[in-house]
């Protein structure tokens, strides 16, 4: 009979105790696993099915030597920490069991997530209610396509914006009034991985107290990648910064109204802020400073007296407007944006020579969670029958947030020559605006603003606007 003597048994036992852990531990549970993954990218579709410990901590390859006394102490501390964590887990489990019983929140959330992602996640199974204490189920499915698609047909998402105002003014013929701003219904829907739809529907009352309804944006967007995003439909022209940053909802604006350079066409604005056509945007590959481009072609703005400015259905000429822009958002200075754009159109009026319109716009913006600094300058160039007319304009706006309070200051200027062929009635306007925005809640804010506007050959306007704007 073979027998092992006591001394040998002791040696064998020691060897087992010393070496067995490193041998018996599954490969996935050691720290080296995470390290291996960091060094070697996993192949697509790789489904790691290893199970074991749920906590594998990546550790850099520069490691220390053998265990010493300090390491033993460290291990003791780690064990204590693990005990603490286990205690926390037990506590959370108990709490989860109390809350999950009536609502089933955790499971429902997982199921909802999986359903919305269009993924058959094993974790979303109703039977899996372990709260993540067990091993994460093996990754069996990788949906490269349509992972954002909901099950079934596209789903419409609606966000509403609105504002209620009071205005007191010294303008002749205008009484102090409460008034409703625009009711803005913002619709989005994802159609596929690359296609989406966006629309902005505006319902507003005019000076005659009658409501009008208009589609201000309607875009079918194709996003091939971040370098190529093509939109077709009615869009907000990318002239400068303000028009594509704030659109119609006054909720996002710091001020109660837009700078008059960027006032909408229906309210006497001089810029072609809406257009119908195609818009192409994206990053410029390999370009420094986070350079992006925009190229747009559309019907442009109507110039005939009495015509609606935005040519949604019929263009008054065969020439198309185009807008080319480039802007930078350098990664090194988060919140900084600067850019330049050139817009061109031909404006035809019956009985008078065609006006060649060029609009050059530049902006320098700095926005972070506290500070807002907006600076934009625009120059119109109107060429008609050998004569050239320039319209300069700019605004600068500064605000700083103190908790929920944001005081602001704005100065704006636009000067249309008295003989300009298109906008002579606008004249010169310039002046400061001061005010404060107070966030009543995440989705409701109150603004109080005072405007002083000097006008050429007319008395200055003083206006006080109180506004409640909200999103819902």
């Amino acid at each position: 009979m073979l027998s092992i003597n006591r001394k040998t048994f002791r040696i064998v036992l020691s060897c087992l105790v010393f070496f067995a852990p490193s041998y018996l531990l599954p490969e996935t549970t050691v720290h080296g696993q995470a390290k291996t993954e960091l060094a070697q990218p996993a192949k697509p579709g790789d489904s790691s099915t290893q199970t074991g410990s749920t906590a594998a901590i990546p550790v850099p390859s520069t490691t220390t030597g053998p265990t010493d006394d300090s390491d033993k102490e460290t291990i003791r501390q780690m064990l204590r920490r693990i005990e603490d964590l286990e205690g926390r887990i037990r506590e959370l489990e108990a709490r989860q069991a109390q809350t999950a019983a009536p609502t089933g929140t955790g499971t429902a959330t997982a199921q909802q997530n999986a359903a919305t992602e269009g993924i058959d996640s094993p974790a979303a199974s109703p039977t899996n209610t372990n709260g993540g204490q067990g091993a994460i189920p093996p990754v069996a499915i990788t949906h490269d396509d349509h992972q954002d698609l909901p099950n079934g047909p596209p789903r419409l998402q609606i966000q509403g914006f609105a504002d209620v105002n009071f205005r007191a003014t010294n303008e002749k013929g205008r009484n102090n009034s409460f008034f409703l701003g625009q009711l803005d219904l913002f619709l989005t829907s994802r159609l596929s991985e690359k296609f989406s739809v966006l629309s902005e529907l505006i319902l507003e009352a005019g000076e005659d107290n009658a409501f009008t309804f208009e589609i201000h944006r309607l875009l079918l967007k194709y996003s091939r990648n971040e370098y190529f995003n093509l939109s077709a439909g009615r869009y907000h022209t990318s002239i400068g910064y303000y028009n594509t940053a704030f659109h119609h909802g006054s909720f996002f604006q710091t001020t109660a109204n837009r700078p008059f350079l960027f006032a909408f066409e229906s309210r006497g604005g001089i810029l072609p802020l809406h257009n119908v056509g195609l818009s192409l945007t994206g990053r410029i590959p390999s370009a420094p400073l986070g350079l992006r481009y925009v190229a747009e072609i559309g019907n442009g703005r109507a110039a005939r007296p009495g015509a609606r400015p935005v040519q949604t259905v019929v263009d008054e000429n065969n020439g198309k407007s185009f807008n080319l822009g480039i802007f930078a958002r350098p990664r090194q200075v988060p919140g900084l944006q600067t850019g330049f754009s050139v817009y061109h159109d031909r404006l035809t009026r019956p009985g008078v020579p065609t006006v060649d319109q060029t609009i050059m716009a530049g902006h320098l913006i700095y926005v972070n969670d506290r500070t807002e600094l907006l600076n934009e300058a625009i120059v119109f160039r109107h060429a008609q029958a050998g004569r050239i007319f320039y319209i300069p304009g700019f605004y600068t706006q500064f605000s700083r947030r103190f908790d929920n309070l944001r005081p602001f200051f704005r100065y704006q200027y636009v000067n249309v020559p008295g003989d300009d062929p298109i906008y002579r009635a606008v004249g010169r306007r310039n002046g400061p605006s001061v005010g404060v925005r107070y966030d009543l809640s995440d989705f409701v804010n109150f603004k109080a603003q005072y405007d002083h506007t000097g006008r050429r050959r007319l008395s200055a306007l003083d206006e006080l606007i109180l506004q409640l704007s909200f999103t819902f």
Partner: protein
Amino acid sequence: MFRANRILNILLILMLMSVPILAPANAVEERLLSPSLLLRTLQRGDLAIIVHKSNPVQNLSMGELREYFLAERSHWSTQQKIRVAMREPGSPEREAVLRLICGMKRDQDFTTYFLRAKFSEQVVDEPRSLDSTPNMIRFVANVSGAIGYVRADEVDPSVRVIRVDNLLPGDPDYKLVLP
């Protein structure tokens, strides 16, 4: 008989001593790792940025992370669409990401930011909000373009940890640390 037993005993001892040599490389490496780094990760509350295992990205700077989490970038270099996963409002992991990566002190700033980004055609989908670490890991493990974050001591092998400014959780100058 006695000699045979002795020879067998010696053979047995030799076999056991050879175990570390024959054991998998990771297991050997495991024995050499210092627990102090692990403890530092635990004590300091390092956050690990995790991506899907098929994602080839190895390292991102804090600036790049900011661009990804704020949807200023829409696609990975592989043309895969980026899907950002965030923890639910109020969780310390989310607060750390908002503060350290996004430069935002208030959760409502992040909400408003994405509402506005959606409004200005910058994004179509808002970040996915997940209410637990297992759900976060599950999401990132299942969605090929996903990027998310968990406490470094909660990472599991179904996802991959990427370096931030060439550092990993546990490294001395690692910046993503829970408050």
